[in-house]
Structure formats: structure tokens, C-alpha cells
């Protein structure tokens, strides 16, 4: 149905219309505002066709027939309160400037002609944003991202999966001030929408989300609070208003090693929480992430390469060593170093071993041994591994890696290794799903515009530039886009903007937006976004519902994290994931008398092996403790019995 006319195109010599911009006026009570999409119907045919132009309002002006404000002051004798007494209200205009979204016909591309202006209808919005090209039945690749509202009209806005998830374009970047939960909420909502509407013919999709602060992403499987307005948006966009059905959480252990280092440590939520622990093999490949470039020079680098190629994971013999070494863990690596350095000292073999200077060997030993200390809880000395299920990722599943409470080095290592593994598996097509969305918040920390060229930043740049061919899609978020390496958001096909800081909006990256659009961005309500997408000629504003998942803050209140657990409780909770019959008493009895390190090793081996009989496997991990027997103390017989109680016999 065609919308009623609510304005007319107007052009003057001072404000002419162009092929990309036009002006129109409306009545004072028209529902037009910044971001409103309008339709212009031309009055003269071009090549036999009446031109139709779609535009989005980017600026608004209001003025009266006064030439100078002083005239109004004079008119009211300087008394503003007399304005209400004016017999007539001055003639007033609402003049708007709109940027062209689309012209039909496309050719010849002419300045916007005079014509009538109407609010765009649902169909008009689809045409204006070129959504008609990807919403066709049978080849529909639309992913709902929100509702466009103008007056009483609401139109669904769709992103093209081909341009959001690859291969045409990919990646999404979202900017917005912190504290409004817009960025996280928008991503959670979009993931729901993608999981619901991702076209079947494009394959499967999973998401890996890095929880970098607080409990933001830790309750994705719990229902949140929605109001009627939210439900209406979910209904309109065809997305079920329910939490994610399949979510798995991963987090390293605390440095102590007893419990998992996450705010989602409530026992009621432990069923889908797994530890994230790596050993030497997992870490060495990414040692570069943890080693300071200034510290590890070419010589140290060469020695690390030597260790990786010749020592680790194979039997290594050398005359300097007291015995052959097979290094599979940081503990065994330390034994290797100790043996090597002692051997060099004992044999007085000089300062070099296999061309490597002893100082270099000592430096590398120091740096590598340090890793398990710096990344305690994630990296284990004994080599226990508990990892994401690379190779068996499941469709429509969210994998949350909680790094919020982890040291910065460990965060970098986790990030680098997980993404690299995803990439490796996607290249081999054996990840388990064909597309993975990686969500990274605080991008300004991982890929800053300035600062050192870190491994993590290089990897993010690589994903953003080449990931779309693999199905590796980066959803990134940050508070200040201007502080992020420009190639990351630059390669994002889709950009979302929540409420922005005025200082940020004053940076050159936002110069393409009109002052009114920037002002609107600075005052956006929660639940509103500005969207840029390859199909949209201009950014548009949409509303999205609250995500149907529990807010992190609510989750933390409803499921308070477990306080410092005793080792027996921590072990019980871990083993109960495998066998609900495990009791605290049984654990206490089993670990009584054993060292903490042995208990944790036994637990880790049990969790990694997932044996059929958990109890017996766990028990078998301990060395038998032979109970001590009381020693018979011989009773001394006095030589002579004493009289009375005088020991001196007086």
C-alpha cells in the first residue's frame, strides 16, 4: 500500500539537489526524523519511466520568516513570556536533507527531480536498501538484524548472509560506549538470528565467543527477561525468543589448580563447563605469543626451533646428557635443561653446545620455564590437556571461552591458539562445521591502531582479510573504533554503531556522517543501532530486542560463583560431571594422605580419559599407601625394686 504524501522535494540555487542528495519540506507535524527513509515520486518520465528515488534523512532544518533573531526580540519587547500572547504563530518550515539510497531507474543517474515525498513502506524499504535482491523466495539469504521504525510503520531489516558470513564479504564490527550493554546484547541477538536464519545451503555454523570481562557471556543458556515490545520484535523478525540451546563453556583453572577460573562456577551450572588446560605441545607452537621479541633474539629463536624440531616429543640423546630424554611436558623440559647445563659444567665442554651459547640456553630455559608460571592454571607442567572440541564442533552451538579472570599473557595465548586451530581445521574442512563466528570484545586491546605488532594483532588482521574464504568470520567490538587498527573494521563488511562518545565522533573516521546523524549517534537509546552493510548505500538506524538470554549481572546474582573451594570439593565437582555417584566422602577418603599435585594429576587424567568407571580409574591413579603399624616398645625392667616412692632409695 502506498503511503500518503507528506512532503515535496524542493531545490534552490543555494541548495540544489544532486544525484546523491536532495531536500524536501514537510508539514510541521509530519513524523519525519533523522534516519527516516522516504520515497520520492518524480513527476516527469525519464526514458518513459517515472523516476522513483529512495533516500534517508540525514539533516533537518527549521526556521521562520524572520531574517534576524533581533526582530523576534523587538516583537516581544524582550519579554519571552509574551510569546504565548501572539495572535498568530509565525510561518515556519521543516526542511530536510536526504541522502539517496537508490534511484529507479538506475540509468541515467540524474539529480533528484521535483516530486512528492512519502514515508517508505515495508516494500519501499526493501527496495531502497536493495534487500529485494537477496530476499527472493528460494534464494533467501536474509538475516534479520532489527526493525526500522518511522511513524507507525515498522519494517524488518535484513543483512545478506553472503556478505555477513562470506564469501562475498564478511565480518562484523560494532562500536559503542561501554556500560549500555549494547555491544554484547547486539551480538547475542545477532547470533540468535543467524542460528535461526542461516541458509541451509550455506552449511553449518557455530560461534566461539571470548568472554573478556565480567560475566557478560556466561549465561547464554539461561532465559533472560523480555517485555512485550521485545517479544513483538522477535515475532516480527521470526526469531524464537529463547536462550541458546547448545552452549559449552571453557575456562582455565585458577593458579592453585583446584577450581575453574570463571564466574560461572556455581555447581548448578557445571554440566557444560570444561577446563581449558594445555601442555608443552600445545604451547610451543605459539611460544612467540608469550615471548618478548626484544628479549628473544635470533639466537634464542634458533635454539627454540632446535628444541621444537629435535627435542620435544622424541627421544633425544647426547653425550652431554646423563641419559636419553623424551620431553612431553614443561616438567620434562625442565629436567632436560637441568641435565644439559649440569652436563656442560661437568664436562667443561666450553660455553657452546651444538653451536648454542650457554647464555642463550639459560635464557631460553628461563623464558620457557616461566610460561607455566605466568599462565598457571592454563599451562600445566605435567602436560594435561583439556581443549575445545576441534574436529567435532556442532552446528548452532556456542563455545564460550572465559578469559576474563586470566592474566594478559594467558589471554593472548588462548586467543592465538584457539583462533589458529579454528583456522587450521577450517582449511582442512574438518572442524565439524563449515562456518565459525569468532566474537572478540575489546578489540582496541587486541588490535590497537598503534603499539607493537603483536602476534594476536597479526592474526586478527589475517582473519579479517582472508577469513571469509574459509568460513572464519570475525565479530569484533570496541568502544573506540578510532583506536583499533583500521584494517580490522575496514575489512568488516558490516558495521554496527551503538551510542557513541562525542569525542570519538569528532575523529576523522566519522566525517562522512552528517552532523545530525552524529548527534543522533551520540544520543542513541539502548536497543538502537546504526547499521552499515554492503547493500545499503547509506547507514540506517534499527531497533533490536533485548537478547533472550540472562544478563551477566543477573546470572551472577542468581548463580553466585563458588567461593574458594577446598581441593576435595573441587575434585568432587569435577568428577561428578562424569559420574554423579561421586560423593564428597568418597573423594576425601580417596585423596587422604596424597599430595595436592598427585590429586590434581589424577583428576586431570580422569577428566581427559573419561573412563567408564570413574571411581576405580581415579583410585588407580594414586600409588598405594602402605598403612603404618605401631612399633612395639620394650618395657624396661628395673634391676631392683624400690621401696616406697623414693627413687633415690633413701
Amino acid at each position: 500500500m502506498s503511503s500518503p504524501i507528506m512532503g515535496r522535494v524542493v531545490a534552490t540555487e543555494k541548495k540544489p539537489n544532486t544525484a546523491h542528495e536532495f531536500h524536501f519540506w514537510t508539514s510541521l507535524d509530519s513524523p519525519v526524523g533523522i534516519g527516516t527513509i522516504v520515497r520520492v515520486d518524480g513527476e516527469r518520465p525519464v526514458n518513459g519511466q517515472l523516476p522513483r528515488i529512495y533516500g534517508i534523512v540525514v539533516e533537518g532544518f527549521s526556521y521562520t520568516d524572520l531574517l534576524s533573531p533581533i526582530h523576534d526580540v523587538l516583537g516581544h519587547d524582550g519579554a519571552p513570556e509574551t510569546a504565548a500572547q501572539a495572535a498568530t504563530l509565525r510561518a515556519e518550515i521543516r526542511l530536510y536533507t536526504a541522502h539517496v539510497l537508490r534511484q529507479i531507474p538506475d540509468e541515467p543517474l540524474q539529480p533528484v527531480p521535483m516530486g512528492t515525498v512519502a514515508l517508505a513502506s515495508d516494500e519501499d524499504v526493501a527496495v531502497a536498501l536493495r534487500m529485494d535482491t537477496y530476499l527472493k523466495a528460494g534464494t533467501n539469504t536474509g538475516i534479520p538484524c532489527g526493525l526500522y521504525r518511522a511513524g507507525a510503520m515498522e519494517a524488518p531489516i535484513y543483512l545478506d548472509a553472503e556478505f555477513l558470513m562470506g564469501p562475498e564479504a564478511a565480518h562484523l564490527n560494532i562500536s559503542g560506549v561501554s556500560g549500555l550493554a549494547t555491544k554484547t546484547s547486539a551480538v547475542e541477538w545477532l547470533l540468535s538470528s543467524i542460528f535461526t536464519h542461516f541458509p541451509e545451503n550455506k552449511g553449518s555454523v557455530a560461534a566461539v565467543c571470548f568472554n573478556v570481562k565480567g560475566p557478560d557471556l556466561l549465561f547464554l543458556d539461561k532465559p533472560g527477561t523480555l517485555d512485550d515490545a521485545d517479544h513483538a520484535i522477535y515475532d516480527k523478525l521470526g526469531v524464537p525468543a529463547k536462550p541458546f540451546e547448545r552452549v559449552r563453556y571453557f575456562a582455565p583453572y585458577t593458579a592453585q589448580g583446584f577450581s575453574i577460573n570463571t564466574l560461572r562456577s556455581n555447581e548448578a551450572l557445571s554440566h557444560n563447563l570444561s577446563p581449558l588446560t594445555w601442555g608443552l605441545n600445545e604451547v610451543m607452537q605459539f611460544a612467540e605469543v608469550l615471548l618478548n621479541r626484544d628479549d628473544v633474539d635470533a639466537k634464542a629463536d634458533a635454539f627454540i626451533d632446535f628444541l621444537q624440531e629435535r627435542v620435544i616429543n622424541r627421544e633425544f640423546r647426547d653425550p652431554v646428557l646423563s641419559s636419553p630424554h623424551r620431553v612431553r611436558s614443561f616438567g620434562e623440559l625442565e629436567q632436560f635443561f637441568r641435565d644439559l647445563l649440569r652436563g656442560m659444567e661437568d664436562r667443561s665442554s666450553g660455553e657452546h653446545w651444538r653451536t648454542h651459547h650457554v647464555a642463550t640456553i639459560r635464557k631460553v630455559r628461563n623464558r620457557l620455564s616461566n610460561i607455566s608460571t605466568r599462565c598457571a592454571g592454563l599451562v600445566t607442567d605435567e602436560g594435561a590437556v583439556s581443549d575445545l572440541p576441534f574436529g567435532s564442533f556442532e552446528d548452532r552451538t556456542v563455545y564460550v571461552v572465559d578469559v576474563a579472570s586470566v592474566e594478559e599473557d594467558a589471554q593472548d595465548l588462548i586467543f592465538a591458539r584457539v583462533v589458529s586451530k579454528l583456522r587450521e581445521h577450517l582449511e582442512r574442512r574438518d572442524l565439524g562445521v563449515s562456518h565459525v563466528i569468532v566474537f572478540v570484545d575489546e578489540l582496541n586491546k587486541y588490535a590497537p591502531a598503534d603499539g607493537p605488532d603483536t602476534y594476536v594483532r597479526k592474526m586478527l588482521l589475517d582473519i579479517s582479510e582472508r577469513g571469509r574464504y574459509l568460513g572464519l568470520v570475525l565479530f569484533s567490538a570496541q568502544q573506540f573504533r578510532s583506536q583499533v587498527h583500521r584494517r580490522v573494521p575496514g575489512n568488516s563488511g558490516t558495521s554496527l554503531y551503538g551510542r557513541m562518545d562525542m569525542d570519538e565522533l569528532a575523529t576523522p573516521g566519522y566525517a562522512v556522517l552528517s552532523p545530525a546523524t552524529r548527534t543522533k549517534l551520540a544520543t542513541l537509546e539502548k536497543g538502537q543501532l546504526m547499521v552499515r552493510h554492503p547493500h545499503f548505500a547509506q547507514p540506517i538506524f534499527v531497533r533490536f530486542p533485548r537478547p533472550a538470554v540472562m544478563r551477566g549481572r543477573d546470572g551472577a546474582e542468581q548463580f553466585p560463583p563458588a567461593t574458594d573451594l577446598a581441593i576435595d570439593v573441587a575434585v568432587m565437582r569435577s568428577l561428578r560431571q562424569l559420574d554423579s555417584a561421586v560423593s564428597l566422602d568418597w573423594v576425601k577418603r580417596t585423596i587422604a594422605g596424597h599430595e595436592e599435585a598427585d590429586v590434581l594429576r589424577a583428576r586431570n587424567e580422569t577428566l581427559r580419559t573419561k573412563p567408564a568407571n570413574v571411581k576405580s580409574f581415579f583410585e588407580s591413579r594414586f600409588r598405594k599407601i602402605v598403612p603404618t603399624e605401631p612399633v612395639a616398645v620394650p618395657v624396661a625392667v628395673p634391676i631392683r625394686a624400690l621401696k616406697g616412692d623414693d627413687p633415690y632409695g633413701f
Partner: protein
Amino acid sequence: MLDAPSIRAADVIEDTQMRAHAVSGPLEPRFDAFLDGSQLTLVARWQGVIPIVFGTVSAAIRQRRERRLSTWGAPLVRRALYAPMSQLDRDVARVLNEMGVAVVDTLERREPDSGHPFALQELAYQAVLADRERVETELAVRWCERERGVLYLDGGISGSATVARAANVVGVIKSHQTLYAEGDALAVVSALTTGQRSSVVRIESSRRTSVASWYLRVADAAGRDPFWGLVRVEVALDDDRSALGRRADDVSRWILAERLPLALPDPRWDKMAYGIRDAEEYLRAVQ
């Protein structure tokens, strides 16, 4: 194009002689609509030394609803060629008549003062002015026939008997080329202060309908010429003379209430009501 300044006698019908009356009471905007006319002239062609003038006359009523103005009915816009037809070549006259545009013979109504080309041009301008008054009157008559609301008419009302006798039309004249007071009476008029009116006089003319009229000072003239902020008001004559003063006070209050908003930036803002400025702007856009 203005008439020559003149003074005409007028009978004072409210008092025995001209005096000032303070308009008291709350100011009350009672006008429902504002009527104004406009004309546009240009010499379309010189046929030798004879000017052929193209004129556009228009009139519009801007009706006030909830303090906003919008156009009442349709504006009257007429276009015509004005030329001394008998002085044109026969072929040129024939071409003008066949152009499909109204042609007005300027010699039909009045003889030129001389054969000077500018005198002919002035004659054409006077003819355009007469047509403007005609469309204004026509529109005012329509208003009187269809509406009961009070009409503020920019100019005199005596040109039409219907309008001149209508109780719901008030004419407000800003120009004082013709004064209806002389001697002591003129001194009283020129000394009126803001919010004062003169006694009511009867204005009679052989070609026009008699009306009641008075002067009203709507803006402080201190430091300016004596006609600054001075308007002359015309309303229908009332047989009840005792009611004249009350009627003059009421209408004066209505006019004074139109001082807000000022008609700035129009240079005649001292005398002009904002509704009239709005009508002029409207006509400028449509004619």
C-alpha cells in the same frame, strides 16, 4: 504610482469634533482571516515608443485556525496584457488579441496625461492597480457570502457595496496619501499615542459606498514621523450612532492584538499586521 497627496473632508460622527480616545480593555485577536492583494508588472515589449505591459494581479485570504494561517479557498490570480490598443499597429493589436491572454485597453478607462511613453506606461500601471482592487473586492465579496468570521482586509472597503456594508469586514489602510482630517483635527490625529484612536468619521464618495472610519495608533511614533504606526480603519456604517464608539473600541482592540508577532522583516512593520505579511508572502510564491 501613488495618488497625489490630498486632504478630504469627513464628518465626525462620534463626537462633536475630532478628539483622541484611549482604547481600553484586554486586547483580543478576533480576526479569522486576512485578505491582501498584489500586483506584478513588467514591460513585455515596446512597440515603437508604445509600451505593452504584462501584469499579474492576485488576491488571497489567509484563514487563521489555532493560530496558524492557511489559504482560504483558492487565491485569485489573473494575468493580462495592458496596452493603448488604438495606438498600436493593427497587426500588432490583432496578434495580441489572438495570443490567448486577456488584453486590457488602457485607454478605455482613462486618457493619458500626455503622449509621453512613460505616461502611457503609467496608465498601464494604473489599470493593473485597478484590476488588483477588483480581485481583492471579488474575493472579499466571496468571503462575505460564505463566511461569518471577521475578515481583516488590507485597504479600504468602500469599493464594493457588499463589502462596505458587511459587519464582518474591517478595512485597515496603511497609506495616508489621502487624509480625512485637516487643521485641528489633523493635529489630534498626529498626536495620537499608542493605543489611542480618533473619533469616528463618515467617509463619503460619489463612486463609493459610505463607511465609518477612524485613525488608530498601533506603534509608538516617538522620534519618528507623525504617520509612523498610524492606520486608518474602515468599517460598515451603523445607523445606531451610539454604538459607533463601542464598535470602534472593539475593532481597535482587535487590531492592536495583531501587533504580535510583528510583521518584521517587512519595512512597513509599524502598520502591518502579521497576517497581511503572511498573505503577501503567499501571493509572492503563487503569482
